[in-house]
């Protein structure tokens, strides 16, 4: 243990401070380095011909005069790569699961519009694009079912014949006797909820550059990925190269939001072709390719029903979910990531005994679904929080009071949910209260009543949720997935100049982890912020890594950094104790200076480093130790992060446009490392959630074509779509995790769609309609009001 005294306690800590992001000067002045900024000598470019068919057999590929275009080097289809690579298999231990293999170019069949079929390699992207026009592909169109309900039928055309079915996933989570609970229930409510398909729409499109080093017979892939470690490990297998000859680097990355968090065939492709052609190969996707071939989100049909006692206690929940997983499994997350999380998290932060959640994951000829900020929980929270509001309304209870009754209370933690997730301890009740206090909820209700009397359509909606973040080795992030997502390594070195390098397996792509992890290290090690360089996003830094996803990096990276910094600090102090002739217990480090409470002697870390490394014999060789440490942290269970969102909206009674009047988030992410960064994450994620609630929708028409092919049709929120967002931080302590940090990068997208859906439903409540599909566009409100075919609640009042 580190010796503590009052002087140490009084020293200012960086954790908890609004430290300006150290990565921003380079990113904001245009000197960041993204994949597309790299141009090694001799580099070639790829352009891809993608399928314009949703499901078809490839009969013939004719390259025509493509080679007549100056600069064209080579043209490949799947058959040219058979001997070069092995496919990636997104395996899972889930029973009955079929893992579709991942090849970079379509083999025999195409299975969605946008799937790569032919790669043209040329001296410039321009030449490659010109040559694409000469390629003609003859297809035999095959029958397909574009909607999941049709694809799930027994006689539906099969997308992958090898699977023998389109329904490649079936799971059931249950506890208790849910059907009996429903028989006993005083009140039941149900709905058929749907979050339509989304895409992550990061600012930087997916970008890859592979370099083959003939001298070392090794490959380096520069990728816009947020999981370079996972990519290294899988490519090592696909390309049969050991880790010493297969390095994956994620340089500056312009956002992911999940979309860059899986292996892509193009990553295999640039690597295979760089090795084959012995030249650097670059592929940069354009926005159309990003919208049509980057992994997409959600797209479940959730039929859910909630049973409640007459005094408003939740007793049972049952749900049947059909997930539209798209045409392929993705690596490493499998096709089950999204749908399984929906039923895992559906019971939410509530106390409830009886549960049954069933899912089917169905293949359809669309881009694969994959990680998207919030994974599963935006959909599950939308469904559950709508049910909560519907039940409260039916009981005549205030939805806040109803939630207060049912949210797990402080004394009940750790609480095992009906689906088996363990909430360690988090401020569920306090977040609800915090959001209500922030807006003066009773006053807001009065304001709403007054506005309604004037004929305005105003509504208030809440959403309370909990998510599992910083997941350790006990559970796989995706079900049955054979990769390790539960540990993170930090390697800290003080070099001979006294500079400090801290290397991680995480891969910051907008989270500001270069700043937050340095803050943690400063507090633990006692050095100066500017003396630390945080390295990340490079598979060569630590032996095993995965990356940054699933709200894990502050928890796991921060924990590993703490352990490694403590270890290095102990070594510095041992060296200092010898050099200063003091007892280790009397020494401490602050601002890079070692002081003793028994002496006026001081030494800087730089002086100690010089003594250790440079001045031979200064420290006896049996006492001399390098000022380095590598530590791995495994939080084992992971930790709950919870929040309540509250939205007040106004619906125009004539145009049906929705305007957000008030928005507040009360959240508990444990110990806050940097409040400015947490605020930024909340603001950004709520904006993204507003997009999901009101605007964004990937639409495939009945012909299987992707209709939203540009940002004129895929509508992301703009500045005028996002209101001021009030943020209340509640820092519940977390004794079991090093540092007490909880992950919080995803929460906004989880709470916002549900809160807005509830608020819009409330605003429309006098009209007898209920929001069950998001985004709730003016068109959808128009259609609901016109038909009114669905009453607020189908089940009879007892």
């Amino acid at each position, binding site marked *: 243990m580190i010796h503590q005294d009052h002087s140490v306690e009084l020293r200012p800590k960086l954790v908890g401070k609004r430290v300006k992001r150290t990565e921003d000067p380079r990113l904001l002045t245009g000197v960041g380095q993204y994949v597309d900024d790299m141009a090694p000598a001799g580099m070639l470019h790829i352009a891809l011909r993608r399928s314009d068919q949703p499901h078809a057999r490839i009969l013939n590929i004719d390259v025509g005069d493509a080679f007549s275009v100056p600069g064209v080097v080579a043209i490949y289809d799947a058959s040219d790569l058979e001997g070069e690579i092995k496919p990636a298999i997104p395996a899972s231990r889930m029973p009955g699961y079929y893992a579709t293999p991942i090849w970079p170019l379509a083999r025999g069949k195409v299975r969605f519009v946008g799937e790569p079929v032919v790669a043209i390699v040329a001296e410039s992207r321009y030449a490659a694009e010109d040559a694409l026009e000469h390629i003609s592909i003859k297809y035999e169109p095959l029958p397909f079912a574009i909607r999941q309900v049709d694809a799930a039928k027994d006689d539906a055309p099969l997308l992958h014949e090898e699977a023998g079915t389109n329904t490649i996933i079936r799971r059931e989570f249950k506890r208790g006797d849910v059907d009996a609970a429903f028989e006993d229930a005083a009140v039941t409510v149900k709905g058929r909820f749907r979050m339509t398909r989304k895409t992550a729409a990061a600012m930087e499109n997916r970008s890859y550059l592979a370099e083959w080093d003939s001298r070392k017979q090794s490959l380096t892939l520069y990728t816009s990925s947020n999981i370079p470690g996972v990519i290294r490990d899988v490519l090592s297998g696909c390309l049969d190269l050991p880790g010493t000859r297969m390095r994956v680097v994620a340089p500056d990355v312009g956002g992911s939001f999940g979309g860059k968090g899986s292996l892509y065939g193009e990553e295999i492709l640039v690597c295979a072709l760089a090795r084959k052609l012995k030249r650097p190969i670059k592929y940069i996707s354009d926005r159309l390719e990003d919208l049509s071939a980057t992994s997409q989100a959600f797209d479940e049909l959730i039929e859910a029903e909630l049973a409640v006692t007459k005094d408003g206690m939740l007793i049972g929940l049952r749900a049947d979910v059909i997930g539209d997983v798209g045409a392929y499994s993705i690596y490493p997350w499998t096709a089950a990531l999204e749908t399984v999380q929906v039923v895992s998290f559906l019971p939410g932060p509530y106390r409830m005994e009886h549960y049954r959640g069933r899912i089917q994951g169905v293949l359809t000829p669309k881009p694969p679904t994959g990680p998207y900020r919030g994974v599963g929980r935006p959909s599950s929270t939308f469904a559950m929080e709508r049910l909560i509001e519907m039940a409260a309304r039916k009981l005549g209870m205030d939805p806040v009071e109803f939630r207060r009754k049912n949210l797990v209370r402080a004394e009940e933690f750790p609480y095992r949910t009906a689906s088996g997730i363990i909430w360690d301890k988090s401020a569920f009740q306090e977040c609800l209260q915090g959001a209500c206090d922030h807006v003066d909820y009773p006053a807001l209700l009065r304001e709403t009543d007054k506005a309604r009397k004037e004929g305005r359509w105003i509504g208030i909606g809440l959403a309370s949720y909990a998510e599992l973040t910083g997941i350790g080795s006990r559970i796989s992030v995706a079900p049955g997935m054979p990769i390790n997502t539960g540990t993170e390594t930090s390697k800290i070195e003080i070099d001979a100049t006294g500079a400090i390098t801290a290397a991680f397996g995480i891969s910051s792509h907008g989270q500001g982890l270069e700043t937050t992890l340095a803050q943690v290290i400063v507090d633990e090690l006692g050095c100066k912020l500017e003396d630390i360089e945080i390295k990340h996003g490079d598979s060569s830094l630590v032996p095993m890594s995965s990356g940054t996803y699933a709200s894990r990096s502050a928890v796991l990276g921060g924990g590993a950094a703490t352990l490694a910094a403590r270890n290095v600090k102990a070594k510095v102090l041992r060296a200092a104790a010898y050099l200063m002739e003091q007892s280790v217990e009397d020494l401490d480090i602050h601002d890079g200076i070692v002081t003793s409470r028994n002496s006026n002697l001081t030494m800087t870390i730089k002086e100690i480093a010089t003594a250790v490394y440079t001045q031979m014999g200064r420290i006896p060789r049996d006492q001399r130790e390098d000022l380095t440490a590598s530590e791995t942290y495994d939080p084992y269970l992971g930790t709950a992060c919870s929040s309540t969102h509250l939205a007040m909206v106004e619906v125009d009674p004539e145009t049906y446009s929705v305007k957000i009047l008030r928005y507040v988030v009360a959240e508990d992410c444990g110990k806050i490392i940097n409040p400015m960064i947490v605020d930024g994450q909340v603001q950004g994620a709520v904006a993204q959630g507003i997009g999901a609630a009101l605007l964004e929708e990937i639409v495939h028409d009945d012909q299987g074509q992707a209709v939203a092919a540009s940002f004129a049709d895929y509508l992301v929120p703009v500045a*005028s779509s996002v209101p001021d967002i009030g943020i209340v931080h509640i820092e519940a302590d977390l004794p079991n995790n090093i540092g007490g940090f909880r992950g919080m990068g995803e929460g906004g997208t989880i709470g916002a769609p549900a809160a807005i859906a509830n608020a819009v439903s409330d605003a429309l409540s006098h009209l007898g309609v209920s929001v069950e599909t998001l985004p709730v566009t003016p068109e959808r409100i128009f259609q609901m009001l016109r038909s009114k075919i669905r009453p607020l609640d189908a089940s009879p009042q007892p």
Partner: protein
Amino acid sequence: MNRHAGGTKRVEEVSFAGEVADDMKPAQFDYIAPTTIDEVAAALAAAEGEGKIIAGGQSLMPMINFRLVKPTILIDINRVAGLDRIELHGDRVRIGATVRHHMTAADAIIRQHLPIVHEAMHHVAHMTVRNRGTFCGSVAHADPATEMPMMTRFLGGTVIAYSQRGRREIPAAEFFVGSLVNSLEPDEFVIRVELDAMRPDAGWGFEEFAKRHGDFALACFATTLHCVDGMASDVRVGMMGVGETPLRLEEIEGIIEGTDVSEPVLDMVADRLAGILMPNTDIHASADYRRHLSGVLAKRALRAAWSRAKTKGFKHNE
């Protein structure tokens, strides 16, 4: 491709230019930037229908980058002197071919003589687009859901086309043929659009609805009218986003003309609109919703226009 590492600043710039070229998406084309309209006309004629005029490029470049349009030559008119002006000529306002949206939005003549155009400019895309895009370019692009073609149709506009064969004046009613289709001959280009200036006593209303500010309109209704002895006179009605071209709706004008623009009149307008409009269904809105929205916007615009006209109407009575 030879790349030079290091070296002088000049060499770095050359290699940077090479990088940009690598990333281009369009099919190959030639480029010319003439300085007179006759040179433009000659180049366009020489292209034999395969040439495209570029001014702001805000509609053309995306189409070129998607290779939906593959011109053999781009003829840049930005260096032609004298096309970047807005002028009042009698009772007509002339807008030259290189007048940018931001110029239209800030122009004093527009603000005074065409306040409805000034208002409409608030709905035109975003700052970056407004800084480059041009009024006449948008008219030539003939998108039925954009403001400039609508204003041209609505305000009795005339498109002045030019070619080696000389000048041709095309009334807006004949200019807009279909969605993204105009009646220019292949060798003609737009040098100017002329619009009726509004009378000082005109009341006007402009209501546009889009999912996000600056997006293409789901529907838009514009009107000008005058109040003479308490009755609506000289009513004009235009719409966009609800047909293959921008619309001038004489039938609706007829319903309003001579009335007191009361709520029953507005109801009649909304009912009739639902009957005559044939909007598209797309991923953003159904035809039925657009019809509904048209009635809503019509009422709002007419109320605003009538309220403005009434305050000016009696002043006008001589």
